[in-house]
């Protein structure tokens, strides 16, 4: 059976976009395939790992679990939207800087999702406690860092403190 395709309009990183897609196509696939925003990654594809996290209307969501029709009219922010002027010499987002300095990223698959979850956390809790950081990132799995450096990155970004000195090698 072949279903009707819909024209779906939404805003991605501040830009109005229209896509033509099957309504049950995952927002994740629309972002990557139709809009070529490949910063958002697919990990588990079942809402467990958080790699595909984006923000939709100000809330953190797993884009693998959003049928694109439900994004009609929504404001979407992806990892590309954290540093929108990067290509024209603009700065990284403070979270991205902190992840760089604190070793919060290794293989990079979880990183875009971690950044989006961290951005959501810091917006709601500008000075998060350790427990809040752990809860805010609990839906994002990393298999490289052991999480400690990711938590340190969030603390560094939240306090705008000078990044801590390089931790000892693992």
């Amino acid at each position, binding site marked *: 059976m072949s279903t009707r395709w819909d024209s779906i309009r939404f805003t991605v990183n501040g830009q109005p976009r229209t896509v033509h897609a099957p309504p049950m196509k995952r927002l994740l696939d629309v972002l990557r395939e139709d809009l070529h925003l490949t910063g958002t990654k697919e990990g588990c594809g079942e809402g467990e790992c958080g790699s595909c996290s984006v923000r939709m209307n100000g809330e953190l969501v797993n884009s693998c*679990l959003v049928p694109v029709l*439900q994004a009609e009219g929504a404001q979407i922010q992806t990892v590309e939207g954290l540093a929108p002027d990067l290509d024209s010499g603009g700065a990284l987002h403070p979270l991205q800087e902190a992840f760089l300095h604190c070793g919060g990223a290794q293989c990079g698959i979880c990183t875009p999702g971690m950044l989006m979850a961290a951005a959501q*956390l810091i917006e709601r809790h500008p000075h998060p406690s350790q427990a809040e950081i752990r*809860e805010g990132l609990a839906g994002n799995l990393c298999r490289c860092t052991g999480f400690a450096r990711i938590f340190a990155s969030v603390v560094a970004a939240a306090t705008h403190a000078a990044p801590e000195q390089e931790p000892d090698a693992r």
Partner: protein
Amino acid sequence: MRGDPEAHELIAPGNLAAVLQLLAAEPGAWTPIAGGTELMVAHAAGRLTARKLVSLWEIPDLRFIRVDEGTIAIGAGVPFIDLRRNAAIAAQLPLLARAASWLGSIANQSRATLGGNLVNGSPAADSSPALLAYDAQVELISARGRRTLPYEKFHTGYKRTALAPDELLLAVHLPRRFARHRQYLRKVGTRRAMAIAKVALAGTALVEENVVRELRLGAASVAPYPTRLYRTEEAILGNSITEETIRTARRALLAEIAPIDDIRSVAEYRRRVAANLVEEFLRELMHSAAPVDAPLMNAALAAWNSADESTALTQMLACCGARRWASAMVAMRPVQDQEALLAVADRIWAAMEEPDWREAFACHPRIGERKAAHASAPPSAQKSAQWSRQEQSGAAQAEARVLEELARGNAQYEERFGFTYIVCATGKSAEEMLDLLNRRLGSDRATELREAAEQQRQITEIRLRKWMAA
């Protein structure tokens, strides 16, 4: 992605009436989808059998939280993130707020809805034990009309519910009459986030003159669907809580539940844990058995118990500026009553060390001054400053001479000990505080540090009492 998006139809009529018309026209043909945290997982795996789906996401008639005189009504389309952020739910239905905060992750809570959690019919549903313990009613709607039934009758079998093919779950209604009840909720899983319950238990109990007068126990993952534990309740009701009652309750529970072996756990483990949870709740009741006209659970305390972490922390920091103390207090939630809170506060304070004490001292203005040397976080600092003004009102009326002597004494004290002179100022005149200052200047540093910590303990206690009385 094994599923084929083109194999499924999805429409979004955008309002409830249109959805109900659709369901009425072709009963059973359309599968409602809200936040997709269940159906989209099946879709990705190629296991989604529904071919025609109708979106309930952000239909205004399903997304509301309404506080009426006797009940709180929650629309089926309310996502869990809204439940945990709602002040009325946090204060009056704390078990539901906590269950919401345990569901999956933040990203799941943004999309998963209360209605979806129930309609899905999982035996492990996170919100179910709390709803059973709160005696919830569910309201169903179709083009034919509405009907209401007790939530405990909603599940009719494994993944089966009372919903007719043309019906939707419209709302959950929760009576607002549990303020005097002791409340319990525990979920046992492999980790705090993202885990599906191996066993979960919620309970509400009214204990009068040490006798259990009212009791509701709701459990998940011990039967084919979330269930009230009627026989266990019967074994306890009307009794006082003794070791014998606990033994009887455990036996009744083990006879009543029928958990299974599955990938998450085994039946035997679930049986033991379920019995342990019932016992834990009963022991809490035993230790907190209240006299007949026990006051309502303190409103400030109830709200704090289920507040989000940063709010809870801010409130504690206003009472005592030591961050380690405040975090430990927050970690002790839920705290049942005023006495328990004060006892916990003392216990944690006693475990603190010099840096914590000094951090707390620094949050008070010097006696006779207005501004603290150090402020923790703006909202707590503001409250703390307000309380300091009340506490030190004795100094506000002091003569200039006494104030000058206080200022000199403060400086001498700080030079000698390295921290601010701190005294529980409530009810003390400036002269008294000056006398105490001069006396304490004669102590050695270790003694004085202990003395200051004790003063801080008293200040914290007074502030906690004020906070709960507010």
